[in-house]
């Protein structure tokens, strides 16, 4: 349970989540990838708190990450709902024209 092993696990979680976020076409699956990445961030922050700098700042970082997860999910689903209402789209590729 050293710093290195904790960070390695966190990095693995982050990369698995990133893979999901990059490959999934469905917006909801993409968000699951984002959640996984933030899970990795939380674990990494906890590891750094424990092994490098056990001050409250590290804990505040985790609170921040957890809040970001909640906000990301709420806004994500609201956007999907709005998109779905207007054009029956739930895939990232279908929403590509939003770019223009």
């Amino acid at each position, binding site marked *: 349970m050293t710093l290195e092993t*904790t960070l390695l696990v966190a990095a693995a*979680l982050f*990369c698995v989540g990133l893979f*999901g976020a990059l490959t999934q076409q469905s917006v909801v699956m993409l968000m*699951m990838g984002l959640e996984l990445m933030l899970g990795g961030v939380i674990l990494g922050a906890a*590891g750094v708190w424990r092994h*490098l700098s056990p001050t*409250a700042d590290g804990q505040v970082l*985790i609170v921040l990450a957890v809040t970001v997860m909640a906000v990301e999910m709420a806004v994500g689903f609201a956007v999907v709902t709005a998109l779905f209402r207007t054009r029956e789209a739930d895939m990232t590729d279908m929403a590509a024209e939003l770019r223009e």
Partner: protein
Amino acid sequence: MFGDVVFWVLSAVAVAAGVMVFRFDSMARATYALLLSLLCVGGLVVRLGLDYLGVVIVLMMTVEMALMAVFMVMYMMNPAGLMPMSMLHNTKGAAVVCGGLFVLLAAGIVLAPWPHRRGRPGDDATRALGESLMGPHMLTMMTLGLALFATIVATVVLATRRGRYDRFGDALRAPRADDPARGGVGR
């Protein structure tokens, strides 16, 4: 020794469940695999000495994933995964990017000359967090609160189908809201 075993089991389950999220065909299974993964992260955070944050992660992620399952089932064309299908794009590129990133991160983690720890974890990490949030980090806390409030308003505006003009008429003068079902406080 026992602590190490717990750590490795939780880590292995967290990563394995994370991988399974994107391999399951059934959306319910994928969501709850993600829940399992994040529960393990919560357990690891508790093991690292942050009891409060670990349990809060468990609590929040459980609620979040239970709600996520609803949206997964709502928006996926094949929620139960009874007909296996692939909904992926750019798999190869993503694999290269993620594999490369992991190698890079791992190299950095292993090779970096990490400094020694400054100070010891206090007896009561929860108290330290609370005093920090209500003291030096008050601004962070207030910003978070504001962001969450903005999120609530924004999500309702984005997702609602019936606004007040639908409920109370164009001039907002209807004596009683035109709702499909009456609510609990008799409106």
